[in-house]
């Protein structure tokens, strides 16, 4: 990786390089095999999906992909998922950064106690809060709205934790200098800390986005209008409409994974740097 400090253990002899490549390639195949099966199954006909073989024996059914778009408003679902996950990510990154700044850089009485309360809530199973949260959504009139999916997911203790650890690693001298110049706390946050936290923010953004793009149960119980379904919920259509259309399900999943892979490939350098700069120092 270009910007990462290379820390390959230097004594490894050159000749072992290709063997190492070979070993890792084999392991990668192990990681890819289920996906290969998924992609191949998405090209089978309904009758073939149950067969033990991997290959679609009767030729590729590219039509499955077109069929996905016909059976469900696939693009609509993807757009819903992307926009909802996008809002959650943006809000979570921003509010977590603010809170993390407060926890990491501002001294106020009771700060650490509040922080540990935050941490403690991470340990509570989400299922307990589901009913109570749902009642709140009903009271606020947010059932079957985008806002109802965005709001509850947008304020996380995890994000605050991650970013706090990260900001602790940024040298204090920088913001002290700014403070001497008379900058307000907001200026310090917005002009000094935020730009320096970039890799940490990207890391949190990716983790949040991935998690939210795939969340299932909350959107399931929240949404009523089909046109507002997110992708994981929309995939249920394949369980009912044509029986269990495993081949179409596989085609849809294959397509739904694609944006995530693109996102990851684009941002992986930032991601590694984000964590490496001290985000997880206990």
């Amino acid at each position, binding site marked *: *990786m270009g910007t990462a400090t290379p*820390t*390959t253990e*230097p*004594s490894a002899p050159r000749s072992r390089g290709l063997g190492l490549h070979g070993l890792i390639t084999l392991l*990668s*195949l192990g*990681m*890819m*095999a*289920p*996906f*290969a099966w*998924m992609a*191949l*199954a998405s090209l089978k006909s309904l009758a073939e999906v149950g*067969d033990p*073989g*991997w*290959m679609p*024996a*009767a030729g590729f059914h590219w039509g499955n992909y077109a069929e996905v778009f016909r059976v469900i408003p696939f693009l609509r679902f993807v757009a819903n998922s992307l926009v909802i996950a996008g809002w959650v990510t943006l809000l979570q990154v921003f*509010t977590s950064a*603010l*809170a993390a*700044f*407060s*926890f990491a850089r*501002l001294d*106020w*009485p009771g700060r650490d106690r509040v922080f540990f309360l935050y941490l403690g809530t991470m*340990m*509570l*199973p*989400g*299922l*307990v*809060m589901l*009913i*109570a*949260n749902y009642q*709140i959504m009903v009271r606020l009139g947010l059932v079957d709205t985008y806002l109802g999916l965005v*709001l509850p997911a947008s304020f996380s*203790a995890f994000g605050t934790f991650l970013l706090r650890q990260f900001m602790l690693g940024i040298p204090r001298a920088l913001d*002290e200098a700014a*403070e*001497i110049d008379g900058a307000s706390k907001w200026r310090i946050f917005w002009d000094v800390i935020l730009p320096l936290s970039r890799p940490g923010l990207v890391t949190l953004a990716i983790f949040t986005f*991935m998690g939210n793009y795939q969340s*299932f149960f909350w959107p399931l119980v929240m949404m009523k209008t089909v046109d507002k379904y997110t992708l994981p919920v929309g995939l249920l259509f394949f369980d009912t409409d044509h029986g269990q259309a495993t081949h179409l399900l596989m085609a849809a999943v294959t397509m739904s*994974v694609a944006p995530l*892979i693109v996102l*990851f*490939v684009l941002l*992986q350098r930032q991601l*590694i*740097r984000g*964590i*490496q700069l001290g985000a997880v*120092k*206990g």
Partner: protein
Amino acid sequence: MKVQSARRRCLVGVAFLLPNIAGFCAFTLIPLALSFMMAFTDWDFLRRNVFRHDPLQWVGLGNFTRLLVDTQFWRDLGNTCFLMIGLPFAIAGSLGAALLLNRIGGRRCRTGPALAAATLVLAASGLVLLRGGMPETGVWFLFGVLAATVLLAGVLTRGSVYRTLFYLPHFTAGVATYVLWKKLYHPTSGPINLALNPLLDQVSSAVRFMPGLFSIGLPLAGAAGALTLVAWHLLRLRRRWDDSEAGISAIVTGSLGPAIPLGFLLARLGLPGAASAAVALAAAALAAALISRRPRPWGPKCAADAGLGLEVALALALIPLLAILLACVVIGPSLPARAQAGFEAPDWLGDYGSAKPALMIMAMWAAIGSNNMILYLAGLSNIPQELYEAADMDGASPRQRFWNITWPQLAPVTFFIAVMGVIEGLQGGFEMARTMTAGGPAGSTTTLSYFVYTEGFETGRLGYAAAVAWVLFALVFVLSLLNFRYGNRNAND
């Protein structure tokens, strides 16, 4: 620099916190408080909701006392803990993957040519496949092409493509992964058993050919392996005690580790449960006593709980290993008789005994290339290069370099991963059980979170479900606290 009043500092601090804390209160704290109150009531949402208003009754600790005698709860708690055994191995897997990927990481990466080459090769082979029809052998061709492409791209990008590939399982986390693995585990048509069955046929014919080797040799080998492992473990404990690296509680934990499989072995060999537990505990106590009564004439005194975190982790890893070796001892003698009928590959998700290990294997596959690997990769590149250079000057072996530099330097990351792993492990399993096994067979894969779901949302007893969830919370909390107390200190050593 102007001096700010405490009041003003407080105000500014809270102002920054406000957006997050407002949402946090609304969507976490209030539901939390509600669910806490629920745990002490008999709230059943079938009887109390918008349409029905049966009076809510405070039952005090009633839900909790009911939980104590609920066999389902204890079974599911056991299942949840059992599934957690995979955690150390998953962490080791992530670490291994990160080490491998890190070794290959180069300075420059040529993504453009790599992408172009990969596209070309894949497109060409796709055309070949389309022309040649789809025989089942095509899959070998496909995998060959994939391997070649990955290798080519790996060499061109100096390994960064592998990172994406290892991270692949994370992209389909959830339903898709579970459906996939259900297919892979299919007892008759799944690829896993299709590969295993010929192998098992070979083994069974080998056993039939040389019954003595397996009926006597395997138990002996298993016993020897187990003894070696235990001896190594105890000697290591003694050395750590002598070096003042481990306190008394670490020694006790370390001695208990091998005692647990021993207890199960004795019970399996026909001893009554209580007796085998007593013997195992006595053995552990003896070992701990023998080690801890050695005087420590030199070196600093160390606290009673020094090194506890490491010993807990090692004991957890030791138990399954010993269990496998001891299983060889137990089943070895009966092997020839079984081989007469031929060995059957397991019915993975359908069999009581194999369903949990099957889920663990899947979880480990998913965990190796997960966020954990990314965290380890970052941790690895944070280690100052000078440390390795200094070690090279001293002529350190690769093993020494790992144990003396890499492992201690990665301790904070390991700590973070372990805490998050425990939290997720204890709360997890709901989606997996829902999609793959419906908690079966015979409840062997019902985790606590699935129990909360069925109690809360199928039978409507929210009060009881909340009580279970809070017990779960207490468990996670205590474990995390221990982890903070002992794991963290070790990490900062």
